């Protein structure tokens, strides 16, 4: 039986710029920044939660030049995948991050599951920050879920 999710991967186009954003602005903690020769292994994690690391990997890691270039374009046009973080106060976090110049795609919005907002990292990766609803959540039908997804 699998017991935990320990590492997720996000493509970033530059490690230093990525650390400025993920650590300097989002406030994640640096897990590891190691020069392994052919590549640099950089991970970050939510403060106090080192058991789940995000690996900030560059398209060049393990790929030929043409493939890496294609990945860079895909990330830049928003075709990459992202992650979702939890916070206690979505609106306050939003205000703090706006002040730091973070690029938001959606202001804090109320949903059945809580309040959340959308943003992009400097490279085009989408992420969301959710303040989970308190108390019992009424799960909507797929149609209602689709309709409120804005």
């Amino acid at each position, binding site marked *: 039986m699998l017991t935990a999710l320990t590492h997720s991967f996000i493509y970033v186009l530059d490690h230093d710029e990525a650390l400025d954003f993920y650590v300097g602005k989002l406030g994640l903690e640096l897990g590891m920044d190691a020069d392994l020769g052919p590549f640099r292994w950089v991970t970050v994690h939510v403060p106090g939660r080192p058991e789940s690391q995000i690996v900030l990997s560059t398209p060049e890691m393990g790929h030929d030049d043409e493939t890496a270039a294609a990945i860079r374009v895909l990330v830049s046009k928003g075709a990459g995948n992202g992650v979702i973080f939890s916070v206690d106060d979505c609106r306050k976090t939003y205000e703090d991050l706006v002040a730091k110049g973070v*690029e938001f795609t959606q202001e804090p919005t109320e949903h059945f599951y809580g309040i959340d907002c959308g943003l992009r990292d400097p*490279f085009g990766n989408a992420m969301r920050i959710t303040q989970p609803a308190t108390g019992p959540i009424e799960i909507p039908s797929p149609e*209602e879920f689709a309709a409120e997804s804005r």
Partner: protein
Amino acid sequence: MVRVDAASRRMLRARDEMDRAYDKPLDVPALAKVAMTSEAHFIRTFKATFGETPHRYLQRRRLERAMALLRETERPVTEICLDVGFASLGSFSRTFSRVVGMSPSAYRLAWRTGAGTAGYVPTCVVMSWTRPSDARQNRSFGEAGGDGSP
């Protein structure tokens, strides 16, 4: 020579602006400014990046929101039209009918009678729902000449 991924990232910013501010009177000069490029270059580069013109992308975004409001609210069509950023009822109805294959009120009725009473979604509604979000299968979207049949 501008790096392709840098240009894509700027186009993504303009696309995010359409997703976020679809209810505002967005025009090409405003979006080109977001993308930090000239107007002519903007339309061409956006299409090269995302496979459709900015105009068509914005129309799809607005129609998708209009369809959700028609399904989930009791608001009159005239209000929904303005809510999602169309300037006139005429252009909203024409565009909606051409793309979805039926008028806004017919769509609302078809959705409710089909999805609400029988517990299933009629094929014509499934087709019309899925159509605007599927750019690849409807290349003529937004262009003149379609016969508008479902």
